[in-house]
């Protein structure tokens, strides 16, 4: 039975359409895997009953020929940083330990309207603050390929849920690599979209000018299908993009071998694990053999992108998280009369008790770089460097159509080894340059390498200019048609 959970979305859609399987069977198969792999700690909340009920309704609709969309009946998981009406939404934090939103995020509304079935809310580094899920109030998720290693983060729970077949696809959120790096660590596909391509309404904010929402899937073809449903302008998110949404499935049907692929030297520089580098260069060689043109390029400003990203992310998160005041919702010391003597106490003590050390660290850094006397030197300077990053990518895309690079400079690492916060920040060095430029990047499996006696996945990312998701998906889909790395599952 749980074999059904191994289906891709595209495969399951075909079987549902032909009437060979039922949504109820899919949901039951996923729930069985969730139950079986509880030790991976992929979920914070599982909504068994409502998922089964929704599946029965979906089957009835299909029987009457009234399926809402092709994905009617497909079970999905979503990062617990998206508001779900009447379902606990924690953002991985103690702060939102008992927060039950009165509304759905736009991406949830769109998926539910299409008949997709929410199966549960996945684990994450709280408020997106981390690259390993070790900063979750609910304990870390584990990497199915080696349970002693992290699955990446912050959308680590979503990645594990897809990799271990606990859902057919998941939704993640990427501010500086939070979809791509966990996808890379768990051998799945994840798309970081162009800023504004998918509505952020109801996504609990980390850094508003960098946050993006996208699919985490077993294949590129699945990502193309899900994108068609979730992308597009939304009146409730004023920053959502007005440009038309491509028919991504159609766009991937024929490989476009005219795409020129750039290999930026900064992404293959010292500090990138030689095994990781080699795995991605092997892919480049095979693409060349398949008829694509490779071009060596350089984007010098990438070396300073990490600093630019973090200053902006710290600043925006300190501002966004100011909303947690102990008054409207979230953890509060308001009723603790021994401790709270003033309004200031409500704010400062509720926040001190509700946020983790890492979240406090980022709020402190953000508050510092925005404070009088330091604003120009740090924040304003970062916004100017952001312009240099945008220009750097624009220049690169005048020479090539897409850029190919590793996702993470390192292989999935063991729990606890990055306890120094700076070391953890450096793990994001290849993913963070993309978000300040607002461009899309598709992460997908490149290969496996042997390391310390285990076989670990290596991910690559394909980047393009804003709104070029079709090109990224086209190339990624071609790769998955000639290479089967993405089909390798963890032996769990």
């Amino acid at each position: 039975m749980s074999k059904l959970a191994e289906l891709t979305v595209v495969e399951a859609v075909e079987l549902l359409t032909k009437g060979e399987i039922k949504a109820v069977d899919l949901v039951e198969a996923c729930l069985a895997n969730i139950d079986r792999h509880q030790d991976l700690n992929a979920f914070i909340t599982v909504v068994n009953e409502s998922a089964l009920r929704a599946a029965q309704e979906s089957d009835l609709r299909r029987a009457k020929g009234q399926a809402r969309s092709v994905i009617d009946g497909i079970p999905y998981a979503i990062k617990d940083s998206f508001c779900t009406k009447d379902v606990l939404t924690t953002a991985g934090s103690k702060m939102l330990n008992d927060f039950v939103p009165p509304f759905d995020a736009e991406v949830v509304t769109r998926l539910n309207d299409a008949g997709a079935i929410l199966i549960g809310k996945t684990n994450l580094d709280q408020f997106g603050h981390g690259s390993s899920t070790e900063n979750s109030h609910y304990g870390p998720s584990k990497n199915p390929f080696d349970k002693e290693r992290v699955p990446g983060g912050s959308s680590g729970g979503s990645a594990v849920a897809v990799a271990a077949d606990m859902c057919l696809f998941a939704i993640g959120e990427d501010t500086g690599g939070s979809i791509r790096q966990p996808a890379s660590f768990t051998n799945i596909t994840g798309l970081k979209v162009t800023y504004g391509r998918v509505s952020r309404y109801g996504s609990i904010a980390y850094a508003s000018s960098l946050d993006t929402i996208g699919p985490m899937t077993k294949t590129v073809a699945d990502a193309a299908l899900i994108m068609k449903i979730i992308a597009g302008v939304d009146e409730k998110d004023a920053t959502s993009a007005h440009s038309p949404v491509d028919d991504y499935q159609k766009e991937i049907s024929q490989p476009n071998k005219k795409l020129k692929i750039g290999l930026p030297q900064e992404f293959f520089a010292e500090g990138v694990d030689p095994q990781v580098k080699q795995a991605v260069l092997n892919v480049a060689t095979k693409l060349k053999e398949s008829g694509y043109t490779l071009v060596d390029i350089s984007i010098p400003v990438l070396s300073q992108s990490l600093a630019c990203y973090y200053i902006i992310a710290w600043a925006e998160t300190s501002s966004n998280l100011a909303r947690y005041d102990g008054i409207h919702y979230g953890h509060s010391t308001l009723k603790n009369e021994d401790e709270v003597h003033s309004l200031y106490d409500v704010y400062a003590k509720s926040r001190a008790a509700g946020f983790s050390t890492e979240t406090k660290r980022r709020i402190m850094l953000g508050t510092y770089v925005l404070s009088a006397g330091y604003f120009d030197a740090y924040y304003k300077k970062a916004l100017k460097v952001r312009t240099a990053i945008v220009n750097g990518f624009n220049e690169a895309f005048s020479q090539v159509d897409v850029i190919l690079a590793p996702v993470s400079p390192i292989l999935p690492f063991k729990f606890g080894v990055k306890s120094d916060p700076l070391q953890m920040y450096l793990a994001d060095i290849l993913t963070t340059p993309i978000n300040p430029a607002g461009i899309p990047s598709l992460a997908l499996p490149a290969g496996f390498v042997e390391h310390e006696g285990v076989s670990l996945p290596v991910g690559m990312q394909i980047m393009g200019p804003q709104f070029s998701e079709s090109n990224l998906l086209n190339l990624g889909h071609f790769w998955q048609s000639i290479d089967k790395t993405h089909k390798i599952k963890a032996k769990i």
Partner: protein
Amino acid sequence: MKDSPKLSKKDVEHVAILARLALTDEEVTKFTSELDQALQMAAALNDVNTNNLAETAHVTGLTNVMRADKTASQLTVEESLANAPSQDSKYFKVPKIL
């Protein structure tokens, strides 16, 4: 930035007040060195010449996004207050401020 004096405990305590975080003494000590290291990393920005560059706060070029001034469905008072730690009939309740 690179030559800026190291953060003092007093600086950290000041920022904690601005950030409305009641930090413990241990946290203040810990953050004093950690924040300093993080800011040293951030100093890499000085390696980029930005003399002729404007600031970028938003990347997709949207300006003046408007919508019709129409009422739409909204949360009820009960829904809005449902997650409040302390409330008094129709209001969020806070300690006396005057």
